[in-house]
Protein backbone atom coordinates (compact mmCIF):
# COMPACT_ATOMS: atom_id res chain seq x y z
CA UNK A 1 0.00 0.00 0.00
CA UNK A 2 2.84 2.38 0.92
CA UNK A 3 6.40 2.10 -0.23
CA UNK A 4 9.01 4.60 0.91
CA UNK A 5 12.48 4.54 -0.61
CA UNK A 6 15.13 6.73 1.01
CA UNK A 7 12.68 9.57 1.70
CA UNK A 8 14.41 12.82 2.69
CA UNK A 9 12.73 15.98 3.91
CA UNK A 10 14.43 19.26 4.73
CA UNK A 11 13.12 22.49 6.21
CA UNK A 12 15.78 24.95 5.11
CA UNK A 13 19.01 23.56 6.51
CA UNK A 14 17.29 21.30 8.99
CA UNK A 15 17.04 17.75 7.72
CA UNK A 16 14.03 16.12 9.34
CA UNK A 17 13.88 12.86 7.40
CA UNK A 18 17.24 11.36 6.50
CA UNK A 19 16.29 8.48 4.29
CA UNK A 20 13.23 6.60 5.45
CA UNK A 21 12.74 3.26 3.74
CA UNK A 22 9.80 1.12 4.69
CA UNK A 23 6.82 -0.70 3.30
CA UNK A 24 3.23 -1.04 4.48
CA UNK A 25 1.19 -3.96 3.17
CA UNK A 26 -2.56 -3.77 2.58
CA UNK A 27 -4.51 -4.43 5.83
CA UNK A 28 -1.39 -3.84 7.85
CA UNK A 29 -1.42 -1.68 10.98
CA UNK A 30 1.93 0.02 11.36
CA UNK A 31 2.73 1.99 14.48
CA UNK A 32 5.43 4.66 14.33
CA UNK A 33 7.14 5.27 17.62
CA UNK A 34 9.87 7.70 18.49
CA UNK A 35 10.87 10.73 20.50
CA UNK A 36 9.26 14.06 19.63
CA UNK A 37 11.04 15.76 16.78
CA UNK A 38 12.18 12.45 15.35
CA UNK A 39 10.30 13.07 12.09
CA UNK A 40 7.51 10.52 12.44
CA UNK A 41 4.70 13.08 12.04
CA UNK A 42 6.50 14.70 9.13
CA UNK A 43 6.74 11.33 7.41
CA UNK A 44 3.02 10.80 7.92
CA UNK A 45 2.27 14.19 6.36
CA UNK A 46 4.46 13.36 3.37
CA UNK A 47 2.27 10.34 2.62
CA UNK A 48 -0.70 12.52 1.64
CA UNK A 49 1.47 15.28 0.24
CA UNK A 50 0.78 17.85 2.94
CA UNK A 51 4.59 18.07 2.86
CA UNK A 52 6.75 17.72 -0.23
CA UNK A 53 9.68 15.36 0.03
CA UNK A 54 13.11 16.55 -1.15
CA UNK A 55 14.52 13.28 -2.38
CA UNK A 56 13.75 9.60 -2.52
CA UNK A 57 10.54 8.05 -3.73
CA UNK A 58 7.25 7.60 -1.96
CA UNK A 59 4.51 5.43 -3.45
CA UNK A 60 0.94 4.96 -2.30
CA UNK A 61 -0.97 2.15 -3.94
CA UNK A 62 1.68 1.89 -6.63
CA UNK A 63 1.66 5.53 -7.72
CA UNK A 64 4.14 8.20 -6.81
CA UNK A 65 2.96 10.76 -4.22
CA UNK A 66 2.69 14.26 -5.69
CA UNK A 67 4.47 13.51 -8.94
CA UNK A 68 4.23 11.61 -12.15
CA UNK A 69 7.22 9.97 -13.78
CA UNK A 70 7.35 10.55 -17.52
CA UNK A 71 10.38 10.11 -19.75
CA UNK A 72 12.68 9.62 -16.80
CA UNK A 73 11.69 12.93 -15.18
CA UNK A 74 9.34 13.81 -12.36
CA UNK A 75 6.47 16.13 -13.20
CA UNK A 76 4.49 17.87 -10.47
CA UNK A 77 0.86 16.81 -10.34
CA UNK A 78 -1.95 19.27 -10.84
CA UNK A 79 -3.97 20.28 -7.78
CA UNK A 80 -6.91 18.27 -9.08
CA UNK A 81 -4.88 15.08 -9.13
CA UNK A 82 -3.21 15.69 -5.76
CA UNK A 83 -6.67 16.20 -4.25
CA UNK A 84 -8.10 13.12 -5.93
CA UNK A 85 -5.38 11.00 -4.41
CA UNK A 86 -5.87 12.53 -1.00
CA UNK A 87 -9.48 11.38 -1.03
CA UNK A 88 -8.16 7.83 -0.83
CA UNK A 89 -6.15 8.59 2.30
CA UNK A 90 -7.92 9.48 5.53
CA UNK A 91 -6.07 11.49 8.14
CA UNK A 92 -6.73 12.04 11.82
CA UNK A 93 -4.91 14.83 13.62
CA UNK A 94 -3.60 15.26 17.13
CA UNK A 95 -5.73 18.38 17.64
CA UNK A 96 -8.83 16.90 15.89
CA UNK A 97 -9.21 19.90 13.55
CA UNK A 98 -12.97 19.51 13.32
CA UNK A 99 -14.71 22.33 11.49
CA UNK A 100 -16.02 24.38 14.44
CA UNK A 101 -18.81 26.10 12.52
CA UNK A 102 -20.45 22.81 11.59
CA UNK A 103 -22.28 20.22 13.65
CA UNK A 104 -20.83 16.73 14.02
CA UNK A 105 -23.08 15.53 11.21
CA UNK A 106 -22.13 18.38 8.86
CA UNK A 107 -18.46 17.72 9.59
CA UNK A 108 -18.90 14.20 8.27
CA UNK A 109 -21.19 15.16 5.37
CA UNK A 110 -19.30 18.12 3.92
CA UNK A 111 -16.40 16.39 2.17
CA UNK A 112 -18.34 13.61 0.41
CA UNK A 113 -20.78 16.22 -0.93
CA UNK A 114 -18.15 18.76 -1.99
CA UNK A 115 -15.41 16.44 -3.15
CA UNK A 116 -17.03 13.17 -4.21
CA UNK A 117 -20.21 14.93 -5.40
CA UNK A 118 -22.37 12.51 -3.45
CA UNK A 119 -25.95 13.58 -3.01
CA UNK A 120 -26.66 15.17 0.36
CA UNK A 121 -29.16 12.46 1.22
CA UNK A 122 -26.72 9.63 0.55
CA UNK A 123 -23.91 11.41 2.39
CA UNK A 124 -26.18 12.13 5.38
CA UNK A 125 -27.31 8.53 5.65
CA UNK A 126 -23.74 7.31 5.57
CA UNK A 127 -22.62 10.00 8.02
CA UNK A 128 -25.30 8.94 10.50
CA UNK A 129 -24.25 5.32 10.31
CA UNK A 130 -20.58 6.29 10.70
CA UNK A 131 -21.35 8.42 13.74
CA UNK A 132 -23.37 5.55 15.10
CA UNK A 133 -20.42 3.25 14.57
CA UNK A 134 -18.11 5.52 16.60
CA UNK A 135 -20.77 5.63 19.31
CA UNK A 136 -21.99 9.19 18.75
CA UNK A 137 -25.47 8.76 17.31
CA UNK A 138 -26.81 11.00 20.09
CA UNK A 139 -24.37 13.80 19.25
CA UNK A 140 -25.05 14.35 15.55
CA UNK A 141 -26.34 17.88 16.06
CA UNK A 142 -23.70 19.00 18.54
CA UNK A 143 -21.06 21.52 17.60
CA UNK A 144 -17.44 20.48 18.23
CA UNK A 145 -17.06 22.79 21.23
CA UNK A 146 -19.96 21.00 22.90
CA UNK A 147 -18.11 17.68 22.68
CA UNK A 148 -15.33 16.24 24.81
CA UNK A 149 -11.93 15.68 23.25
CA UNK A 150 -12.58 11.96 22.89
CA UNK A 151 -15.91 12.60 21.19
CA UNK A 152 -14.33 15.15 18.87
CA UNK A 153 -11.63 12.73 17.85
CA UNK A 154 -14.24 10.05 17.13
CA UNK A 155 -16.13 12.52 14.93
CA UNK A 156 -12.83 13.25 13.19
CA UNK A 157 -12.36 9.53 12.52
CA UNK A 158 -15.90 9.30 11.14
CA UNK A 159 -15.21 12.34 8.95
CA UNK A 160 -12.12 10.68 7.48
CA UNK A 161 -13.97 7.39 6.96
CA UNK A 162 -16.78 9.15 5.12
CA UNK A 163 -14.48 9.48 2.10
CA UNK A 164 -14.14 5.68 2.11
CA UNK A 165 -10.35 5.77 2.15
CA UNK A 166 -8.11 2.81 1.44
CA UNK A 167 -5.62 3.96 4.01
CA UNK A 168 -5.87 5.82 7.30
CA UNK A 169 -3.14 7.96 8.83
CA UNK A 170 -3.30 8.79 12.54
CA UNK A 171 -1.04 11.57 13.82
CA UNK A 172 -0.84 11.10 17.60
CA UNK A 173 -4.62 10.75 17.82
CA UNK A 174 -4.74 10.47 21.60
CA UNK A 175 -1.95 12.82 22.66
CA UNK A 176 -4.25 15.80 23.22
CA UNK A 177 -6.80 13.81 25.24
CA UNK A 178 -7.36 13.55 28.96
CA UNK A 179 -6.24 10.09 30.11
CA UNK A 180 -9.76 8.82 30.76
CA UNK A 181 -10.81 9.62 27.17
CA UNK A 182 -7.95 7.81 25.44
CA UNK A 183 -9.63 4.41 25.63
CA UNK A 184 -12.76 5.34 23.66
CA UNK A 185 -10.67 6.56 20.71
CA UNK A 186 -8.35 3.55 20.79
CA UNK A 187 -11.40 1.27 20.83
CA UNK A 188 -12.66 2.82 17.60
CA UNK A 189 -9.22 2.44 16.03
CA UNK A 190 -9.01 -1.17 17.17
CA UNK A 191 -12.37 -1.82 15.52
CA UNK A 192 -11.10 -0.33 12.27
CA UNK A 193 -7.98 -2.47 12.37
CA UNK A 194 -10.07 -5.59 12.91
CA UNK A 195 -12.12 -4.74 9.84
CA UNK A 196 -8.94 -4.78 7.81
CA UNK A 197 -8.21 -1.08 7.31
CA UNK A 198 -4.63 -0.28 6.41
CA UNK A 199 -3.40 2.09 9.09
CA UNK A 200 -0.27 4.05 9.88
CA UNK A 201 -0.40 5.31 13.46
CA UNK A 202 2.03 7.72 15.07
CA UNK A 203 1.49 7.09 18.75
CA UNK A 204 2.95 6.97 22.22
CA UNK A 205 0.44 4.33 23.29
CA UNK A 206 2.72 1.32 23.68
CA UNK A 207 -0.20 -0.86 24.76
CA UNK A 208 -2.11 -0.09 21.57
CA UNK A 209 0.97 -0.71 19.43
CA UNK A 210 1.52 -4.07 21.08
CA UNK A 211 -2.06 -5.29 20.88
CA UNK A 212 -3.27 -3.86 17.59
CA UNK A 213 -0.13 -3.15 15.58
CA UNK A 214 1.24 -5.64 13.06
CA UNK A 215 4.51 -3.79 12.77
CA UNK A 216 6.28 -1.37 15.02
CA UNK A 217 8.75 1.11 13.55
CA UNK A 218 11.04 3.03 15.85
CA UNK A 219 12.18 6.29 14.27
CA UNK A 220 14.81 8.57 15.74
CA UNK A 221 16.51 11.63 14.25
CA UNK A 222 14.94 11.05 10.86
CA UNK A 223 15.98 7.44 10.35
CA UNK A 224 14.32 4.10 10.93
CA UNK A 225 16.20 2.58 13.84
CA UNK A 226 14.30 -0.62 14.28
CA UNK A 227 11.41 -2.46 12.62
CA UNK A 228 9.70 -5.57 13.87
CA UNK A 229 6.69 -7.25 15.38
CA UNK A 230 5.53 -4.98 18.21
CA UNK A 231 5.76 -7.58 20.98
CA UNK A 232 9.34 -8.47 20.06
CA UNK A 233 10.53 -4.91 19.67
CA UNK A 234 8.94 -3.84 22.94
CA UNK A 235 10.03 -6.88 24.91
CA UNK A 236 13.45 -7.17 23.38
CA UNK A 237 14.67 -4.01 21.63
CA UNK A 238 17.85 -4.53 19.62
CA UNK A 239 19.17 -0.99 19.54
CA UNK A 240 20.40 1.21 22.35
CA UNK A 241 18.22 4.13 21.26
CA UNK A 242 15.10 1.98 21.21
CA UNK A 243 15.93 0.63 24.65
CA UNK A 244 16.54 4.11 26.02
CA UNK A 245 13.26 5.41 24.58
CA UNK A 246 11.14 2.48 25.74
CA UNK A 247 12.60 2.67 29.23
CA UNK A 248 11.48 6.30 29.42
CA UNK A 249 8.00 5.64 28.06
CA UNK A 250 7.19 2.79 30.45
Amino acid sequence: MIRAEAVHKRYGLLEVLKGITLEVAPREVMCLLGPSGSGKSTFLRCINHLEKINSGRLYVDGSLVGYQERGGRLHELREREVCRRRTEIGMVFQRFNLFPHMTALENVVVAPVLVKKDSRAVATTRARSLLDRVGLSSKVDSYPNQLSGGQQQRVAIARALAMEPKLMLFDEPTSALDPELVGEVLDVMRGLAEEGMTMVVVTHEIGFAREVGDTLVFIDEGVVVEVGAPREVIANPQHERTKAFLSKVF
Partner: protein
Amino acid sequence: MIADGEMGHPPEEIRAVPLRHPGRWVGTAVLLVLGAMLVHDITTNPRFGWGIVGTYFFSTPVVQGVEKTLELTFVAMAIGVILGVLFAVMRLSPNPILSGAAWLYIWFFRGTPVYVQLLFWYVISALQPTISLGIPFGPEFVHMSANSIVTPFVAALLGLGLNEGAYYAEIVRAGILSVDHGQFEAAQSLGMRRAPLMRRIVLPQAMRVIVPPTGNETISMLKTTSLAVVVTYPELLYQTENIAARTYETIPLYIMASFWYLLMTTVLTIGQYYVERYYARGTSYALPLTPIQKLRRNLTTLRRVPFSATSAGGS
Protein backbone atom coordinates in the same frame (compact mmCIF):
# COMPACT_ATOMS: atom_id res chain seq x y z
CA MET B 1 -22.76 20.78 50.08
CA ILE B 2 -19.99 19.88 52.50
CA ALA B 3 -20.20 23.22 54.30
CA ASP B 4 -23.93 22.79 54.66
CA GLY B 5 -23.66 19.33 56.11
CA GLU B 6 -20.89 20.15 58.54
CA MET B 7 -22.03 23.55 59.76
CA GLY B 8 -25.69 22.65 59.91
CA HIS B 9 -26.82 26.00 58.46
CA PRO B 10 -26.32 27.76 55.11
CA PRO B 11 -23.53 30.38 55.05
CA GLU B 12 -24.69 33.89 55.94
CA GLU B 13 -25.23 36.28 53.02
CA ILE B 14 -22.70 39.15 53.04
CA ARG B 15 -24.30 42.56 53.65
CA ALA B 16 -21.35 44.96 53.48
CA VAL B 17 -21.56 48.75 53.37
CA PRO B 18 -21.04 49.59 49.67
CA LEU B 19 -18.02 51.67 48.70
CA ARG B 20 -18.90 55.39 48.26
CA HIS B 21 -17.93 57.13 45.03
CA PRO B 22 -17.94 60.92 45.67
CA GLY B 23 -16.12 61.52 42.35
CA ARG B 24 -19.11 60.15 40.48
CA TRP B 25 -21.41 62.64 42.16
CA VAL B 26 -19.14 65.55 41.23
CA GLY B 27 -18.89 64.26 37.66
CA THR B 28 -22.66 63.90 37.42
CA ALA B 29 -23.16 67.46 38.62
CA VAL B 30 -20.68 68.87 36.10
CA LEU B 31 -22.29 66.93 33.26
CA LEU B 32 -25.76 68.02 34.30
CA VAL B 33 -24.74 71.68 34.25
CA LEU B 34 -23.07 71.32 30.85
CA GLY B 35 -26.09 69.43 29.54
CA ALA B 36 -28.46 72.09 30.80
CA MET B 37 -26.40 74.79 29.06
CA LEU B 38 -26.51 72.84 25.81
CA VAL B 39 -30.26 72.24 26.00
CA HIS B 40 -30.82 75.89 26.82
CA ASP B 41 -28.82 76.99 23.77
CA ILE B 42 -30.46 74.49 21.46
CA THR B 43 -33.95 75.47 22.53
CA THR B 44 -33.52 79.23 22.73
CA ASN B 45 -31.03 79.99 19.90
CA PRO B 46 -33.29 80.74 16.89
CA ARG B 47 -30.43 80.11 14.45
CA PHE B 48 -30.84 76.37 14.93
CA GLY B 49 -34.07 76.79 13.02
CA TRP B 50 -35.78 73.68 14.34
CA GLY B 51 -38.93 74.50 12.49
CA ILE B 52 -37.05 74.39 9.20
CA VAL B 53 -35.45 71.08 10.15
CA GLY B 54 -38.94 69.69 10.62
CA THR B 55 -40.29 71.25 7.43
CA TYR B 56 -37.72 69.68 5.15
CA PHE B 57 -37.13 66.40 7.04
CA PHE B 58 -39.69 64.45 5.04
CA SER B 59 -39.76 66.66 1.96
CA THR B 60 -39.67 64.81 -1.35
CA PRO B 61 -36.13 65.72 -2.47
CA VAL B 62 -34.71 64.83 0.96
CA VAL B 63 -36.48 61.48 1.11
CA GLN B 64 -35.32 60.76 -2.44
CA GLY B 65 -31.81 61.74 -1.38
CA VAL B 66 -32.01 59.32 1.55
CA GLU B 67 -33.10 56.53 -0.79
CA LYS B 68 -30.20 57.31 -3.13
CA THR B 69 -27.76 57.40 -0.21
CA LEU B 70 -28.92 53.97 0.95
CA GLU B 71 -28.81 52.58 -2.57
CA LEU B 72 -25.31 53.90 -3.13
CA THR B 73 -24.16 52.61 0.28
CA PHE B 74 -25.34 49.07 -0.29
CA VAL B 75 -24.32 48.72 -3.91
CA ALA B 76 -20.87 50.27 -3.31
CA MET B 77 -20.46 48.09 -0.23
CA ALA B 78 -21.49 44.99 -2.19
CA ILE B 79 -18.88 45.83 -4.82
CA GLY B 80 -16.34 46.42 -2.06
CA VAL B 81 -17.11 43.09 -0.37
CA ILE B 82 -16.96 41.09 -3.60
CA LEU B 83 -13.73 42.74 -4.71
CA GLY B 84 -12.34 42.52 -1.19
CA VAL B 85 -12.91 38.77 -0.87
CA LEU B 86 -11.57 38.24 -4.39
CA PHE B 87 -8.40 40.25 -3.81
CA ALA B 88 -7.83 38.82 -0.34
CA VAL B 89 -7.96 35.26 -1.70
CA MET B 90 -5.75 36.31 -4.62
CA ARG B 91 -3.31 37.97 -2.25
CA LEU B 92 -2.91 34.70 -0.32
CA SER B 93 -2.69 32.61 -3.48
CA PRO B 94 0.49 30.64 -4.12
CA ASN B 95 0.32 32.01 -7.68
CA PRO B 96 2.70 35.02 -7.80
CA ILE B 97 0.80 36.67 -10.68
CA LEU B 98 -2.46 36.66 -8.73
CA SER B 99 -0.95 37.78 -5.45
CA GLY B 100 1.14 40.44 -7.19
CA ALA B 101 -1.88 41.84 -9.06
CA ALA B 102 -3.88 41.95 -5.84
CA TRP B 103 -1.03 43.70 -4.04
CA LEU B 104 -0.82 46.32 -6.81
CA TYR B 105 -4.56 46.97 -6.70
CA ILE B 106 -4.60 47.36 -2.94
CA TRP B 107 -1.52 49.55 -3.03
CA PHE B 108 -3.04 51.93 -5.55
CA PHE B 109 -6.59 52.25 -4.31
CA ARG B 110 -5.68 52.38 -0.64
CA GLY B 111 -2.90 54.82 -1.31
CA THR B 112 -4.93 57.57 -2.97
CA PRO B 113 -7.72 59.59 -1.33
CA VAL B 114 -11.22 58.42 -2.16
CA TYR B 115 -12.18 62.04 -2.85
CA VAL B 116 -9.53 62.27 -5.59
CA GLN B 117 -10.66 58.91 -7.00
CA LEU B 118 -14.22 60.21 -7.21
CA LEU B 119 -13.07 63.37 -8.97
CA PHE B 120 -11.13 61.24 -11.42
CA TRP B 121 -14.11 59.07 -12.30
CA TYR B 122 -16.15 62.21 -12.74
CA VAL B 123 -13.75 63.62 -15.35
CA ILE B 124 -12.91 60.26 -16.90
CA SER B 125 -14.39 61.34 -20.23
CA ALA B 126 -11.68 63.97 -20.51
CA LEU B 127 -9.10 61.19 -20.28
CA GLN B 128 -10.91 58.52 -22.28
CA PRO B 129 -13.62 60.16 -24.41
CA THR B 130 -14.70 56.83 -25.87
CA ILE B 131 -14.75 53.33 -24.48
CA SER B 132 -14.69 50.48 -26.96
CA LEU B 133 -14.76 46.72 -26.92
CA GLY B 134 -12.55 44.79 -29.27
CA ILE B 135 -9.24 43.02 -29.68
CA PRO B 136 -6.43 44.88 -27.88
CA PHE B 137 -4.45 46.93 -30.44
CA GLY B 138 -6.71 45.37 -33.09
CA PRO B 139 -10.17 45.97 -34.50
CA GLU B 140 -12.86 47.42 -32.22
CA PHE B 141 -16.44 46.25 -32.28
CA VAL B 142 -18.40 48.51 -29.97
CA HIS B 143 -17.85 52.22 -29.40
CA MET B 144 -19.46 54.18 -26.61
CA SER B 145 -18.87 57.61 -25.23
CA ALA B 146 -17.49 57.53 -21.71
CA ASN B 147 -20.07 60.05 -20.61
CA SER B 148 -22.94 57.74 -21.48
CA ILE B 149 -21.48 54.88 -19.45
CA VAL B 150 -19.95 56.71 -16.52
CA THR B 151 -23.04 58.46 -15.23
CA PRO B 152 -22.82 60.19 -11.83
CA PHE B 153 -24.15 57.01 -10.23
CA VAL B 154 -21.55 54.81 -11.94
CA ALA B 155 -18.80 57.30 -11.11
CA ALA B 156 -19.85 57.25 -7.45
CA LEU B 157 -20.05 53.45 -7.45
CA LEU B 158 -16.64 53.07 -9.06
CA GLY B 159 -15.01 55.59 -6.77
CA LEU B 160 -16.51 54.24 -3.55
CA GLY B 161 -16.63 50.54 -4.49
CA LEU B 162 -13.10 50.20 -5.83
CA ASN B 163 -11.71 52.06 -2.86
CA GLU B 164 -13.70 49.92 -0.44
CA GLY B 165 -12.51 46.78 -2.22
CA ALA B 166 -8.94 47.65 -1.36
CA TYR B 167 -9.68 48.21 2.32
CA TYR B 168 -11.96 45.24 2.54
CA ALA B 169 -9.35 42.95 1.01
CA GLU B 170 -7.12 43.65 3.98
CA ILE B 171 -9.95 42.94 6.42
CA VAL B 172 -10.73 39.62 4.72
CA ARG B 173 -7.04 38.75 4.59
CA ALA B 174 -6.76 39.30 8.34
CA GLY B 175 -9.82 37.09 8.80
CA ILE B 176 -8.38 34.28 6.68
CA LEU B 177 -5.06 34.45 8.50
CA SER B 178 -6.90 34.17 11.83
CA VAL B 179 -8.19 30.69 10.91
CA ASP B 180 -6.15 27.90 12.49
CA HIS B 181 -3.75 26.23 10.07
CA GLY B 182 -5.09 22.83 11.14
CA GLN B 183 -8.36 23.69 9.40
CA PHE B 184 -6.60 24.02 6.05
CA GLU B 185 -4.80 20.72 6.61
CA ALA B 186 -7.95 18.89 7.67
CA ALA B 187 -9.79 20.13 4.58
CA GLN B 188 -6.85 19.31 2.31
CA SER B 189 -6.55 15.83 3.76
CA LEU B 190 -10.20 15.27 2.78
CA GLY B 191 -9.26 16.12 -0.79
CA MET B 192 -10.83 19.57 -0.95
CA ARG B 193 -9.49 21.86 -3.59
CA ARG B 194 -8.63 25.47 -2.87
CA ALA B 195 -11.90 27.08 -3.94
CA PRO B 196 -14.33 24.90 -1.93
CA LEU B 197 -11.86 24.88 0.96
CA MET B 198 -11.97 28.66 1.10
CA ARG B 199 -15.72 28.91 0.57
CA ARG B 200 -16.96 26.24 2.93
CA ILE B 201 -14.26 25.90 5.58
CA VAL B 202 -12.07 28.96 5.85
CA LEU B 203 -14.26 31.95 4.98
CA PRO B 204 -17.16 31.00 7.30
CA GLN B 205 -14.65 30.83 10.16
CA ALA B 206 -12.96 34.03 9.06
CA MET B 207 -16.37 35.72 9.24
CA ARG B 208 -16.12 36.00 13.01
CA VAL B 209 -13.12 38.28 12.50
CA ILE B 210 -14.47 39.90 9.31
CA VAL B 211 -18.00 40.83 10.41
CA PRO B 212 -17.30 43.44 13.13
CA PRO B 213 -15.13 45.60 10.84
CA THR B 214 -17.68 45.06 8.04
CA GLY B 215 -20.32 46.79 10.13
CA ASN B 216 -17.83 49.52 10.76
CA GLU B 217 -17.03 49.82 7.05
CA THR B 218 -20.72 49.91 6.11
CA ILE B 219 -21.36 52.72 8.58
CA SER B 220 -18.29 54.50 7.28
CA MET B 221 -19.45 53.97 3.70
CA LEU B 222 -22.86 55.43 4.48
CA LYS B 223 -21.18 58.64 5.57
CA THR B 224 -18.60 58.60 2.77
CA THR B 225 -21.38 58.53 0.17
CA SER B 226 -21.78 62.24 1.01
CA LEU B 227 -18.60 62.75 -1.04
CA ALA B 228 -20.65 61.74 -4.09
CA VAL B 229 -21.69 65.39 -4.09
CA VAL B 230 -18.58 66.00 -6.21
CA VAL B 231 -19.83 63.71 -8.98
CA THR B 232 -23.25 65.46 -8.80
CA TYR B 233 -25.03 62.32 -7.67
CA PRO B 234 -28.27 63.46 -5.98
CA GLU B 235 -27.87 61.71 -2.66
CA LEU B 236 -28.84 63.16 0.73
CA LEU B 237 -26.13 65.81 1.07
CA TYR B 238 -26.49 66.90 -2.56
CA GLN B 239 -30.23 67.45 -2.07
CA THR B 240 -29.58 69.21 1.21
CA GLU B 241 -27.10 71.59 -0.38
CA ASN B 242 -29.51 72.19 -3.23
CA ILE B 243 -32.23 73.27 -0.85
CA ALA B 244 -29.72 75.33 1.17
CA ALA B 245 -28.56 77.12 -1.97
CA ARG B 246 -32.14 78.09 -2.68
CA THR B 247 -33.30 79.00 0.82
CA TYR B 248 -30.04 80.09 2.52
CA GLU B 249 -31.11 78.01 5.55
CA THR B 250 -27.72 76.31 5.66
CA ILE B 251 -27.47 75.39 9.34
CA PRO B 252 -30.95 73.90 9.84
CA LEU B 253 -30.51 71.87 6.67
CA TYR B 254 -27.12 70.51 7.70
CA ILE B 255 -28.67 69.62 11.05
CA MET B 256 -31.46 67.85 9.22
CA ALA B 257 -28.98 65.88 7.10
CA SER B 258 -27.00 64.97 10.22
CA PHE B 259 -30.14 63.59 11.86
CA TRP B 260 -30.81 61.45 8.81
CA TYR B 261 -27.25 60.09 8.80
CA LEU B 262 -27.46 59.42 12.53
CA LEU B 263 -30.77 57.62 12.11
CA MET B 264 -29.41 55.41 9.34
CA THR B 265 -26.15 54.57 11.12
CA THR B 266 -28.14 53.66 14.25
CA VAL B 267 -30.21 51.18 12.29
CA LEU B 268 -27.04 49.71 10.79
CA THR B 269 -25.47 49.40 14.25
CA ILE B 270 -28.42 47.34 15.44
CA GLY B 271 -28.24 45.17 12.31
CA GLN B 272 -24.53 44.60 12.87
CA TYR B 273 -25.22 43.27 16.37
CA TYR B 274 -27.48 40.51 15.05
CA VAL B 275 -25.18 39.56 12.17
CA GLU B 276 -22.30 39.19 14.63
CA ARG B 277 -24.40 36.90 16.77
CA TYR B 278 -25.13 34.72 13.77
CA TYR B 279 -21.48 34.21 12.94
CA ALA B 280 -20.55 33.53 16.58
CA ARG B 281 -22.23 30.12 16.19
CA GLY B 282 -20.08 27.23 17.34
CA THR B 283 -17.65 29.49 19.19
CA SER B 284 -19.26 29.63 22.64
CA TYR B 285 -21.60 27.43 24.61
CA ALA B 286 -24.37 29.99 24.93
CA LEU B 287 -24.77 33.28 23.13
CA PRO B 288 -25.49 36.30 25.31
CA LEU B 289 -29.09 37.42 25.22
CA THR B 290 -30.20 40.05 22.74
CA PRO B 291 -31.49 43.30 24.29
CA ILE B 292 -35.04 42.23 23.46
CA GLN B 293 -34.56 38.84 25.10
CA LYS B 294 -33.02 40.55 28.13
CA LEU B 295 -35.97 42.92 28.38
CA ARG B 296 -38.45 40.08 28.08
CA ARG B 297 -36.66 38.02 30.70
CA ASN B 298 -36.41 40.96 33.09
CA LEU B 299 -40.13 41.56 32.74
CA THR B 300 -40.97 37.91 33.41
CA THR B 301 -38.59 37.68 36.38
CA LEU B 302 -40.07 40.85 37.84
CA ARG B 303 -43.42 39.20 37.75
CA ARG B 304 -42.04 36.02 39.26
CA VAL B 305 -40.21 37.68 42.17
CA PRO B 306 -42.84 36.96 44.89
CA PHE B 307 -43.01 33.34 43.82
CA SER B 308 -39.26 32.68 43.91
CA ALA B 309 -38.94 34.49 47.22
CA THR B 310 -41.51 32.26 48.92
CA SER B 311 -40.23 29.08 47.35
CA ALA B 312 -36.65 29.94 48.41
CA GLY B 313 -37.84 30.61 51.97
CA GLY B 314 -39.81 27.40 52.06
CA SER B 315 -37.04 25.00 51.13
